[in-house]
């Protein structure tokens, strides 16, 4: 279904989409943490392990609240929706370098999030249980040595098919829509 007409998403669009997600998800997580009081007093810190588990779970909840529906129906996080790109199975893209240069495929596309996508998005379970697991790595970029992981993950985007490590592991590719 239209697979041969899908174009790889540009690196800049992907970068901006990632930055949007990296702001929105923690912002909602912070709001959830604030409302639920899971790290609001000294008693919470008395069991740091449990507190951190709550923080993680609420971050997951924030991710799913923000991105769950659009990922399911359109293979898009909010950031990708804003930037007009989507995640599809790698097998759905028959890479055609000749078509990549055609202006007709670069036309602006205003996505409608609540309308089923005109393409087949990647399976939700892959997006949540494989691909999304790499998302927290973004926030480890400030930790020495551990920062190599997100760098490695993102560095692969400079490959010919612009697939980050999380794309390779999940078997996905990001395209313009």
């Amino acid at each position, binding site marked *: 279904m239209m697979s041969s007409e899908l174009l790889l998403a540009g690196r800049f669009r992907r970068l901006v989409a990632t930055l949007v997600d990296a702001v929105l998800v923690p912002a909602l997580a912070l709001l959830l943490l*604030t409302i639920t009081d899971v*790290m*609001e*007093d*000294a008693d919470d810190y008395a069991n740091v392990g449990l507190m951190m588990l709550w923080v993680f779970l609420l971050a997951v909840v924030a991710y799913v609240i923000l991105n769950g529906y659009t990922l399911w129906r359109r293979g898009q996080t909010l950031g990708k929706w804003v930037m007009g790109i989507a995640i599809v199975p790698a097998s759905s893209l028959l890479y055609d370098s000749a078509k990549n240069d055609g202006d007709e495929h670069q036309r602006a596309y205003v996505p409608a999030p609540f309308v089923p996508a005109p393409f087949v998005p990647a399976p939700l379970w892959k997006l949540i249980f494989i691909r999304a697991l790499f998302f927290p790595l973004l926030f480890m970029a400030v930790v020495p040595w551990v920062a190599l992981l997100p760098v490695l993950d993102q560095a692969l985007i400079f490959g010919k098919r612009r697939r980050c490590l999380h794309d390779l592991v999940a078997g996905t590719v990001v395209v313009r829509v």
Partner: protein
Amino acid sequence: MSRLRNTRSRIAAGGRGLARFMAVTGCLWATFFAHGVVAECGTVDPLPGFESSYARGWGIDQRNTRYQPRSTIDSGNAAKLTLKWAYGLASTTPRSYPLVTEDTIFLGDGGRGLVALERETGCERWVYEHEGPISSTILQGWIGKRRILIFNDRNDGMFAIDAVDGEFIWHATVEDEPAPWYSGSPLLLGDTVILPVSSKEVGYAVNPIYGCCTTSGGMAAFDIKTGAKLWYIPTIEAIAQPTERHWLFVQEYGPSGAPVWAAPSYDAKRGLIFFGTGQNYSHPTTETSDSIFAVVAKTGEVRWVRQFTANDAYTAACNLEALNHPNCPDPTGPDVDFGAATMLVKSKAGRELVIAGQKSADAHAMDPETGEVVWTQKLGRGGIIGGVHWGMAANESLGLVYVPISDKKIVGFSSPGEPTPGLYALDIETGERRWKYSRGSRCPDLECVFGFSAAIIASNDIVVAGSMDGILEVIAAESGKRLWSHDSWRDYRSVNNVVTSGGAFDAHGAMIADDLLLVSSGYSYVGQQRGGNAFLVFQIGVDDEQ
């Protein structure tokens, strides 16, 4: 089960890969770049001697005078101090004060454990493995005929182990507070161990969705035999109540704070312990913050409290001044804790005084009976790491108390006034200033800022002080003249063959025993200071590199 391992068993066990790598790297590094005497650590007798001890706690004596009477180092021979050996610590922020016996040095090595080093060579007798940050002096005591060692894990409480075989005996924590911080060294009084209690909330408050603050500092007493709590007193008796909210959902509380950061001093005649408190963490403030407490050692009954700075509310969130952090109390106080240990000293005229040094750079003398202020001396500008930060020393025969002043500026934090760092000698009886020792910075960088944050120690006619710019100095006790110095911003060849370098002098400061001067070099806990992992032992009259 014992977690003690001696050197041979460690080698037999193969060690850890990283440790091996570090050791090999350290050897190469040391061979090419460093100098010094390195002992060949062959077979070391794992049994330490305990016939003689050079301190009864953090303050050398129980009054916290930090005066070492058992020393041969004086103004006549201090210039002959030379490096005897260096030991490479696992931590670059060493924060343990050694226990010295006739043949052994016990020292906490952050993240690694408690190490027993042969005094003559620095070779390891054994290592008691402990993952947490050992942050106190090492006490020795008895349970019946069993000799024990007591130390603090800053995060996890107080531990007692068998001094001979390393067997774990007990672990004591303060359950009365949800976020206790065990920064202050314990004090052993007979069968009772007195433990200062601070609060981690000062740091938790950096989290903007934390509802600051509910906890209090305090002082606790434990039975040495079992580790059971005998009494606990909070420095704030009132239970924190909800106050304001920020960000709609985050409930704030108060009063809170008044942590105890340092070892108490003991007045045997009156049966009292004295200790200082820090600032409040939230409003409303209390009359017990930035105060000196006198407490009956046996019962915990508060005899008197003397407050020196009122309405001082401050948390680490205030260090992020530009962010207008919601957990920085408004109005914001100057953060002038009594971080340094109090001392009970006697003037030449025989008058006993409790002397306390404050981060405001004030030194105060009080009547131990009533808490009445006898004199106060303002010696510097003060700041969030002093003023007086870790501890003073006294030489009662000279009638002098020595007050180290840090006055260090912290980036991003306003420090009004001119800094006047240095070492000050005051008359115990009157507080009159006798002399001041100071010098310039060695470079324009912040890590070069001169100032004495670390505790100091006195002996005979000398005072030993290490500065934040990595220079250890011996100063004449009567004149303030510098007699000897050692620049620790360098690499050392260590007896345990790990990469070893010095850094800032801070925290508990130096120890003296006989003709030895012992000190940890490196402290990166407070920003802008150079970390290091060297434990250095100097000796009078040993010829080496220097």
